[in-house]
């Protein structure tokens, strides 16, 4: 079973960020149902990979959620939901969760989990996700994310003007990560 990516954000050295990527997912609607019902076993950020440009994009959202949490300024109930909310450029929580989060018809998923070092795990994140997600786990890399991205969806989600090119993924990542950082302030 492939495991995903685990890394530490330089500004948060005591937390581990786990990122998993799944294709051929068959039980998206079940996961979504459990999520909405508040099942704590599903405390992961489930993101639609079509909305994701790169790992740096994901990390920008994670960073925003973490800094908001540290400052006591989270707008949603859990860190996982805050991470999904952080992807959006607007203050409309429901709209952002709908656009960037898991949908009933999602056939691929990007999953994020943040653990602080104090948290003890009986089950590794990947084993747990392997039980939850019915799909194929592939390495969470920029190369694997790229083919899953739908650039037009990204453009619509962030209301990026037509004049701004998203062809260069590095420049495009700057555009969205700036929007993420400035959410609520622009």
């Amino acid at each position, binding site marked *: 079973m492939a495991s995903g990516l685990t*890394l*530490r*954000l*330089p*500004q*948060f*050295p005591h937390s581990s960020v786990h990122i998993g990527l799944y294709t051929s997912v068959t039980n998206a609607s079940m996961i979504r149902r459990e999520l909405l019902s508040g099942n704590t076993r599903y405390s992961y950020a489930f993101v639609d990979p079509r909305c994701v*440009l*790169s*790992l*740096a*994009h994901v*990390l*920008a959202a*994670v*960073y*925003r959620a973490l*800094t908001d949490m*540290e*400052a006591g300024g989270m707008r949603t109930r859990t860190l996982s939901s805050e991470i999904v909310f952080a992807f959006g450029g607007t203050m409309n929580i429901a709209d952002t969760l709908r656009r960037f989060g898991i949908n009933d018809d999602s056939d691929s998923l990007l999953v994020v989990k943040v653990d602080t070092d104090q948290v003890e795990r009986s089950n590794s994140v990947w084993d747990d996700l392997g039980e939850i997600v019915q799909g194929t786990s592939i390495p969470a*890399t*920029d*190369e694997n994310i790229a083919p899953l991205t739908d650039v037009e969806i990204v453009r619509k989600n962030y209301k990026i*003007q037509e004049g*701004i090119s998203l062809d260069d*993924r*590095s*420049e495009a*990542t*700057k*555009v969205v*990560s*700036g929007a993420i*950082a*400035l959410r609520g*302030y*622009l």
Partner: protein
Amino acid sequence: MSPDLSTLPSAISDALDLTLISQGAEAKIYFSHEHPFIPSTLLAGTISTTISNPSAGYILKYRPPKRYRHDALDAQLTKHRTLSEARILYKLFLAGISVPSFIAVDPRLGLIWMENVDGPSLKEWIWATETELEEHLCEEGESGQSKKRLEIIKPLLLSVGSEIAKLHFLDTVHGDLTTSNLLLRDGSSLGAEGATGSHQRMVPQPVIIDFGLAQQSTLPEDKAVDLYVLERAFISTHPIHSGEYVEWVLEGYVAGFGRGKKTAVFKVNEIMRKLDAVRLRGRKRSMVG
């Protein structure tokens, strides 16, 4: 004056290796090799196609609390100025202006993360270039040097003017335009061949920094003042050739304003007229008679 890191929030100064590189009246500038949220392993990896130029490092601009101000007022000011600067940096980037890339902001703490621009300021570059020209061309005398200045310095100042014009065309004034706030990317030196070397040297790219005093303004007067501040900066830091330098910057400015669209020509002429007026108003100028 020893660096005072004690006011930087400990959560950040503990986690990251930060070096104080500059301290102004309003803010402290720190340098970090590490990105705040992209680990070095990702930055360095060859698979990382989505992060440009990680080697230059990152800048953390910190506006510490000012104890001499009333608390509530200070908090509001810090937040407002930090946000204003961050927003401007991002908007200018979207518009294609050459500025450091905006990464993240914390308005409450007064923090802005941005990419570092690895290169000298225009001030340093001109000094270095003038010195090198003097050394290499002392035999050729003044006319030889002036020709070289034209070849080497003029193209750069034309592009500086053009970049400022783009800024003004977006109705944004910088507020503190000096040769220290213009950095040069890929502008490390005249190159290995030195001043007498090849003519195919790349013109370094000017990057405008420090938008802490920047504002939106449609007034030609405000833009003229912006240019006048830069003109005074040239006169005071590069007194010998400032005449030429300012002329070239303005030449680049006029040429680059609005990219020659019809309405733009009218606007830029208006700004130039205002600049003449502002010059007459300058320090120690008598408007009597």
